[in-house]
């Protein structure tokens, strides 16, 4: 597609001007300096290079759902432009006379073929993108295609501009081929060659300088203003991807509140708790916001968004960018962004299910950023969701969010005539069975707790429970931004756990599993924690549990977010279910494993209702109904409650059942 080798010197002057403007416009990148430093962040070279190639250049996450319209579209645009970039670079070298003996010439057959193919790919991709923005438009994309969210020309303006560049490129190539090149060679430039038949070579000859110059100048203009447009993502998102520490992704940062409170020099009025001002976010959180490409994939999979709640993860991330650019480029005064433009209800609508983060092609870290803003609401303003406030107060007073008495934590066992071995008496055991608040107080989950005891006894495990010494892990409190309460619970539990000797903790609740296993470490509570699915699977594999395969029903498994997406455990619960199936069959719902749809109970949402739209659990349960199963298997206390509620709302009590995997295993003993 590229043209002459007789490049006039003045072109380089224009190129230089374009580059200067480009660099000037690039200064928006420096806006991330407004953010605070992140002492936990250290750049890791090898993973950064891996990320750069795998998630950046190869765009692995773009192709997550392999053959979706958007991924094919992006493949054509992205790789079309990689080819054009390569071709232009080679041509520049050739024109300068550098490495000429090693490089192909514009009319080298394979190079010509590749070059035109790249242009054609980009053209198809751009047309697909325009179609998607104006004819077959998903509702998560910015509503005004020509404005976007603060990008110059919006999405469609840029697409049309690129279209102009591609046409210009092909036309000037056609002119060059018509005027200078023999058709036996020119035919390899398969697009330009065909266009060259449109006019006589005299006409092409007259047009050539105009076509060439206009294409060159339009290209320079595109380069100069690239950082102001959506295409900036090709640079900034790639940088963000490289700099993302995937080990820290999704990790909520500890605030060490108790240390803060002991600090005698601490000034309550000055200290910032949580994030609302741009200065409260880390530079990486701000970089995330700049890196957002507004593809809408996060929003498309968000359970809150899909049930008409006022949350779009993309909107929140781009709100941050909008305010950041406003402050940095236009000197706008930004005091705080929680409240306006990011509303409290948006923040409370998040179930922290992690679907957005799983989907994001540029590795944005949504949940910790949302949690920081919730922290601002709770810790600085004292404004948790009013219904959540009640369960937080109960947790503070009684050590469980239901508000039942601390002294009745093992009543479920006593009432069932079970004598639980207590850590306070045994002091030492192989397995510490963490019952959790749901297992202790919620009637539905008490059945799971009893099933667990039956399993532990059947496998002859040396185990004990903490009994009244056990307390809420603080999961809901932490997701809700109540870091003080979380830390209070965590420190108290760690102190209790450290009194005893055990090899591992097992728990049927993925929230307890995640919190103790992944988060207590920050407070020197390091334990080996297993989810009951993993534990039971081990018992089956090692032959300690002999199961009678009894289930003849059709069954589906609902993935718990904090077991699946947050901890990557998809297989254990499925294997456990398979081990009790006789003639029954495990059928997957449409959204499963990493693409699973939340039950609506995570992120503290268990304790309050966002009034808008449909209930998340109803939508999920309908999916199970549509799968035509008799049993919905769960492996999470909250999922069990939410699915069981939905079962009743849908009036399926007589035809369907919600069962925790432990209940099925206990039946198979």
């Amino acid at each position, binding site marked *: 597609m590229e043209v002459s080798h007789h490049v006039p010197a003045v072109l380089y002057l224009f190129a230089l001007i374009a580059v200067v403007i480009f660099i000037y416009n690039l200064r928006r990148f420096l806006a991330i300096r407004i953010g605070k430093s992140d002492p936990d962040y250290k750049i890791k070279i090898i993973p950064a290079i891996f990320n750069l190639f795998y998630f950046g250049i190869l765009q692995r996450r773009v192709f997550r759902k392999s053959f979706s319209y958007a991924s094919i579209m992006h493949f054509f645009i992205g790789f079309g432009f990689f080819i054009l970039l390569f071709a232009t670079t080679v041509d520049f070298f050739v024109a300068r006379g550098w490495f000429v003996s090693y490089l192909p010439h514009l009319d080298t057959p394979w190079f010509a073929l590749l070059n035109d193919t790249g242009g054609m790919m980009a053209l198809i991709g751009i047309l697909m993108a325009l179609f998607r923005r104006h004819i077959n438009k998903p509702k998560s994309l910015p509503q005004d295609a020509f404005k976007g969210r603060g990008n110059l020309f919006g999405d469609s303006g840029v697409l049309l501009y690129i279209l102009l560049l591609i046409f210009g490129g092909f036309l000037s190539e056609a002119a060059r081929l018509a005027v200078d090149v023999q058709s036996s060679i020119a035919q390899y430039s398969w697009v330009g060659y065909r266009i060259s038949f449109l006019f006589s070579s005299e006409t092409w000859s007259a047009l050539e300088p105009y076509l060439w110059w206009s294409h060159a100048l339009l290209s320079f203009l595109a380069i100069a203003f690239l950082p102001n447009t959506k295409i900036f993502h090709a640079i900034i998102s790639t940088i963000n991807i490289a700099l993302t520490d995937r080990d820290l992704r999704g990790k909520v940062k500890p605030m060490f509140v108790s240390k803060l*409170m002991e600090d005698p020099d601490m000034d*309550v009025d000055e200290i910032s708790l949580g994030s609302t001002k741009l200065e409260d976010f880390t530079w990486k959180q701000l970089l995330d916001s700049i890196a957002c490409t507004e593809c809408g994939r996060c929003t498309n999979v968000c359970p809150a968004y899909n049930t008409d709640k006022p949350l779009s993860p993309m909107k929140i991330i781009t709100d941050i960018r909008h305010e950041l650019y406003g402050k940095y480029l236009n000197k706008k005064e930004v005091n705080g962004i929680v409240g306006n433009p990011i509303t409290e209800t948006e923040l409370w609508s998040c179930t922290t299910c992690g679907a957005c983060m799983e989907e994001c092609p540029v590795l944005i870290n949504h949940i910790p950023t949302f949690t920081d803003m919730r922290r601002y609401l*709770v*810790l600085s303003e004292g404004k948790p969701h009013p219904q959540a406030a009640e369960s937080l107060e109960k947790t503070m*007073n009684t050590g469980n969010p239901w*508000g039942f008495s601390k*002294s009745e934590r093992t009543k479920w066992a006593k009432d069932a005539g079970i004598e639980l071995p207590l850590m306070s008496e045994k002091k030492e055991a192989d397995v510490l069975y963490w019952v959790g608040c749901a297992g202790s107080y919620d009637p539905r989950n008490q059945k799971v707790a009893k099933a667990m005891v039956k399993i532990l006894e059947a496998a002859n495990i040396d185990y004990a429970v903490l009994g009244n010494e056990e307390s809420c892990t603080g999961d809901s409190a932490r997701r809700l931004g109540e870091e003080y309460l979380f830390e209070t619970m965590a420190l108290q539990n760690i102190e209790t756990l450290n009194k005893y000797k055990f090899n591992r903790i097992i728990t049927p609740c993925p929230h307890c599993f995640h919190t103790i296993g992944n988060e207590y470490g920050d407070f020197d509570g390091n334990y080996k924690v297993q989810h009951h699915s993993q534990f039971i699977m081990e018992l089956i594999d090692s032959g300690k549990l002999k199961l009678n395969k009894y289930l003849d029903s059709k069954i589906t498994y609902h993935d718990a977010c904090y077991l699946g997406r947050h901890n990557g455990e998809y297989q254990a619960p499925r294997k456990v279910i398979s081990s009790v199936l006789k003639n029954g069959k495990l059928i997957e719902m449409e959204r499963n494993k990493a693409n699973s749809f939340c039950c609506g109970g995570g992120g503290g949402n268990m304790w309050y209702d966002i009034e808008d739209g449909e209930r998340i659990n109803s939508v999920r349960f309908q999916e199970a109904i549509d799968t035509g199963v008799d049993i919905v298997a769960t492996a999470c206390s909250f999922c069990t409650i939410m699915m069981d509620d939905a079962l009743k709302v849908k009036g399926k009590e007589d035809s369907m059942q919600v069962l925790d995997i432990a209940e099925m295993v206990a039946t198979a003993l």
Partner: protein
Amino acid sequence: MKIGVLVKQVASGESPLRIDTSGKWVVEESIDFTTNESDSYALEEALQIIERSGGAGEVVVISMCPAERTPKIIREALAKGGHRAIHIQEEAPYETDPFMVASIFAEALKDESFDLILSGLQSDDLGSGQTGVILGELLGMSTATLVMGVELQKGKLRVKRELESGWFQWVTLPFPACITIQSGLNQPRYPSLKGIMGAKKKEIKSIAKSDVKGSGTPMQEFSRMYTHKAEKRTEMIEGSTDQIVDRMIDIFKKNIKVI
């Protein structure tokens, strides 16, 4: 405006209640203590009155309870925005006569010269609902009970009182006034961490109950405490249809008292 708010620590609704050996109190070990519900609303109303009048004034949190367990609710009230606190420390046996409780408060608070004293309508444990009103009378303040809304007027206080059957009554009171607050008139705030941190530096004045010379003598005595008993009783009714119906009506009227 200087406002005093009475807060009491009571057993939370879900606490298991067992009578102790004296037969006059419950076993405290198994109880989770919390702030009396209507007192939380009273505190919130006090904080909102100060906020409505531009932040000028003071909210003083006042509580009488054993030394070891009250500070938690006092600190919580200070974290929510109370400016300082007065803690009257008592020892078992706890004061249960509302007149005596009010007399002790009156004696301890007489030099504070509050413009307004708020308390919850009644405590969730003993529920006599009298302490606030008696305190007002002892301190020579105007009083109102069952308050559902508070409006400040020039030198006066206009309150909305809850009557029976969904009726309300507006009453205007001169200052100083002592009113008891019904739950539900506002949304009590959640203590922010900033508030909790700030509360550490706020003053809690402790006074031993024995140092306060309460006026008067107890007017009632607490003789015994019971827990409710669940009981199943079956009576087989025999006879003609009329006799059965008569007997059933009789039981509904006299025994179960549902008609």
